[in-house]
């Protein structure tokens, strides 16, 4: 039970009650080959029928969606970096980092742990999904997420986030973003394989002299037990707007679990009763 809330977890889906589940599914986003085209943002919206997120120029490089949110489940960050130089010096001192962020599908997902209605649940692929037919918009998950991923949509009040295209996975398809990605910056597959691939890519980059390359989310001993979506970054996580040391917010609060569990029980009972009532 302790492992279910913190630290490494051998089989996330089994821990969530699935018998003989498929391999844990994940994303590996290799930002070193990202070209910032935002195909992931659009493919995600088309598949999941997400509404637009407003039409305002942010002035933050080419990023006009700003952050992950209820209506932006893939978000490409653009980070412009320049070393000081003289006019006329054309030496390549400019870097333009791009990275497609997404829900981390944590091993220990605070959003799920605090959800009192059972709307958030762990799928057989070990991913974390909101069931929109259950969500009541309480927003506990919103403040619980250590990455600021999940959010409520203003108009319908419910919480929304990346489902890793749960409906597609069930039919053996890959998530829309990974499929569209022109340069394979977003890769989808069994998490174990992706972790190995990420290590290999990291080694290649280090050999090529890209010393600043690092992985993010691959450490099972980190504050969320490792993530289902890992990243290869070319700078500190903070440069991309990612928390350097995320911790599942429910780590030290077993009491909170009991409370939430009780609430979930009560609500689930209520839902069941409503089914019975309709028979």
């Amino acid at each position, binding site marked *: 039970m302790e492992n279910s809330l913190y630290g490494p977890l051998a089989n996330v889906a089994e821990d969530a009650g699935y018998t003989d589940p498929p391999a844990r599914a994940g994303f590996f986003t290799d930002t070193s080959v990202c070209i910032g085209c935002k195909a992931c943002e659009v493919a995600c919206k088309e598949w999941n029928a997400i509404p637009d997120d407003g039409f305002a120029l942010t002035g933050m490089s080419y990023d006009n969606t700003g952050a992950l949110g209820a209506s932006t489940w893939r978000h490409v960050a653009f980070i412009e970096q320049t070393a000081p130089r003289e006019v006329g010096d054309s030496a390549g001192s400019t870097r333009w980092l791009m990275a497609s962020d997404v829900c981390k599908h944590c091993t220990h997902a605070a959003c799920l742990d605090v959800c009192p209605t*059972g709307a958030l649940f762990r799928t057989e692929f070990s991913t974390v999904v909101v069931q929109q037919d259950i969500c009541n918009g309480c927003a506990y998950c919103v403040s619980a997420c250590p990455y600021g991923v999940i959010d409520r949509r203003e108009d319908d009040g419910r919480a929304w986030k990346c489902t890793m295209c749960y409906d597609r996975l069930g039919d053996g398809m890959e998530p829309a973003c990974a499929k569209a990605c022109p340069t394979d910056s977003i890769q989808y597959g069994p998490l174990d394989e992706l972790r190995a691939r990420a290590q290999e890519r990291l080694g290649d980059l280090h050999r090529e002299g890209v010393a600043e390359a690092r992985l993010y989310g691959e450490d099972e001993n980190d504050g969320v037990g490792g993530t289902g979506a890992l990243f290869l970054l070319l700078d500190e996580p903070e440069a991309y707007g990612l928390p350097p040391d995320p911790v599942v917010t429910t780590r030290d609060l077993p009491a909170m679990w009991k409370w939430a569990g009780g609430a979930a029980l009560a609500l689930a009972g209520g839902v069941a009763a409503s089914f019975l009532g309709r028979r």
Partner: protein
Amino acid sequence: MARVGIESWPVLRQLTGTDRLGRGEAARSKRTDALVARTEQADRVVSSVCPYCAVGCGQKVYVKDEKVIQIEGDPESPISRGRLCPKGSASKQLVTSPGRQTTVLYRRPYGTEWEPLALDDAMDMIADRVIEARRQGWEDTSGGKPVRRTMGIASLGGATLDNEENYLIKKFWSALGAIQIENQARI
């Protein structure tokens, strides 16, 4: 509505099943259990090509009840290997957007608003105007040399059209004697 047995109660599933914390198997809703990719429900899947740039990425078009329900990359294309850029990924919206204008509009000379017009009437009116403008701009000779052409009609466009369409455009306008036939390739 399907019968819901008592064994499907989440509470019961949580208490009796393997998902003691109620965060996985036990929490699944009926809707979740019924979820399938909508592409699985398509009446037909049609091979297409992205209409934006000239890379020529392969697309699969999923149609259900005579509506496009999804357009995504064709993994079999040796050009694109199933991938699409943001524009290609927005192809479904290009086709299904409610903002798309699907009826004929007419603006009379010096008019201040659009007016509706039947397609058939529009085609007749355009045919009449082509014939008239062709004659108005007709030149048998230019600078003493035979040209047998009309300068009364011009056309621009074709780079987003099919080859077959461009062929009919060039063929028919040339037969009419129109020479100012151009497209984006000049721009």
